[in-house]
């Protein structure tokens, strides 16, 4: 029990440090994950508006279709922030200083990830608010909103893990910057911007295998107020698998680093 209390306390201290660093660089920490999705929602909802007129288009408007993808885009843009901070600690030697303190390595990771999740979930919900103000539906009630927040947090955690794996492998901030465009293939080879029925065959196959499609579809259903248990379970499973894949690899890499010979 004491172990857990101590881990929670250390995690809170590391979270506090990340929060303070984030507030000192608000453009990177808070504005960046918000700005690009807002730009996309503004442009795409205008540029592709007539797409909704296509026969078989399953949503009332293109904005309604794409809004969940843009909410989740905040996760893909914002999740790399704390991995960047960790690389900086590695490069300055501050991580060695922390290793000499009686702090659990798990707390060093959990505190950072906690800040990523809190910060990006807030940004994603901000994007959602703008989308709704522009006319996207939000008919799922508090439970629907909760489902959106949980999926957004989970997707952030999965994506943050990816940044950690690459960052800890390459040990350079440049590698993290190079990872940013990855959101594009992940989004295009999914049901984020075009319904499955309108995708060419091979893209449809890729989209079905892409965990992101399941997350986007569930968030879309939660916004429309039609989220069923089966769809939610599929999305949660997709998120859980993605989190497990990236975070286990990240944790192992981090453990290898702090126990390095």
């Amino acid at each position, binding site marked *: 029990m004491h172990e857990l209390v101590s881990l929670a306390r250390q995690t809170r201290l590391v979270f506090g440090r990340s929060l*303070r660093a984030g507030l000192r660089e608000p453009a990177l920490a808070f504005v960046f994950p918000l700005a690009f999705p807002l730009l996309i929602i503004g442009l795409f909802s205008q540029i592709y508006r007539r797409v909704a007129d296509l026969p078989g288009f399953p949503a009332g408007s293109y904005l309604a279709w794409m809004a969940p993808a843009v909410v989740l885009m905040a996760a893909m843009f914002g999740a790399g922030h704390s991995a960047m901070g960790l690389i900086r600690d590695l490069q300055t*030697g501050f991580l*060695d*200083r922390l*290793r000499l*303190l*009686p702090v659990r390595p798990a707390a060093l990771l959990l505190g950072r990830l906690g800040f990523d999740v809190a910060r990006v979930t807030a940004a994603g919900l901000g994007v959602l608010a703008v989308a709704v103000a522009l006319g996207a539906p939000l008919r799922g009630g508090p439970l629907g909103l909760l489902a959106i927040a949980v999926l957004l947090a989970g997707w952030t955690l999965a994506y943050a893990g990816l940044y950690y794996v690459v960052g800890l492998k390459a040990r350079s901030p440049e590698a993290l910057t190079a990872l940013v465009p990855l959101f594009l293939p992940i989004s295009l080879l999914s049901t984020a911007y075009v319904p499955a029925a309108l995708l060419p065959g091979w893209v449809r196959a890729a989209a079905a295998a892409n965990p992101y499609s399941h997350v986007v579809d569930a968030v879309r259903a939660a916004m429309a107020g039609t989220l069923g248990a089966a769809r939610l379970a599929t999305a949660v499973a997709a998120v859980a698998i993605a989190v497990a894949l990236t975070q286990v690899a990240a944790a192992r890499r981090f453990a290898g680093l702090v126990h390095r*010979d």
Partner: protein
Amino acid sequence: MTGPAIETIGLGKVYPGAVRALDEVSFRAGYGEVFAYLGRNGSGKTTTIRILTTLTAATSGTARVAGHDVARDPATVRRAIGVTMQHAALDETMTGRELLGFLAALWELPRRAAVARIGALADRMGLGGVLDRRIATYSGGTRRRLDLAGALLHRPRVLFLDEPTTGLDPQSRRALWDQVRELRDQGSAIFLTTQYLEEAAQLADRIAVLHGGRLAAEDTPDRLRRRQGGLRLRVRVDPSRPAPAWAGNGHGDPPDRRGWITRPVGSADHARRLLDDLVTGGAAVAELHLDEPTLEDAYLALTGTEASTAPPAAMAAVPA
């Protein structure tokens, strides 16, 4: 405190790729003394510090710090030691006070005790005026002092300072020396690596010289200097005149190209007699010095004088 502060027996480190960074290094350092660890770049200094501070595992031998084995009991060792790294390891986005507060909280100092300790250390390190400024605005010397304050928060008895004054101006260097002496006088053990022979001469009670991963010497500064012999007479003669026989021993080396003749002498009187002989022999003496051997002479004799040698392969594998 009984027993040595630091004791290593046959310490060795081989990095992956069979790069031997440290080979059979054994020494002892006591409380209340400054132990200076000298060596060229890549000689294994930082590897030694990383092993003694539990950050890296040795591949052979043992090391005990503050009475505890660094491999078997790293957590206890970490509580007993304070460490400053080669480059002050700080988070530039914080203020000095925030950084010290963060470290104190992770040390689990009670809040009020932490505030008092931070205030006292800031006074002692001369940080009072800058503690609430961002570290990004600090000068090199201020960063080092903050780094040292951070290493002292938990009152460690054994301090490791890896090149603490590299890049500092002479005033900041002297201020840091004073801090180190004060800590030593209070009974701490201080293990210090440095590239500056003057620093070792000023501070060290004992000096170990590392060369190519092996200990080339370990002694007091005075005894290390005396290994190079006693007084030395250096005379510059006009090299265009025929080299005179060096009367008195008759078989000394001739002057070098610039006319310098160097001879060991037993006393000032011995030097005077040699000089008399030289002048009698027809030399025109342009310049003369009577020197004691310096620590630098001893160091160069132990580690070689050539500057161009490629750093040992160990450099590539030593963690930055």
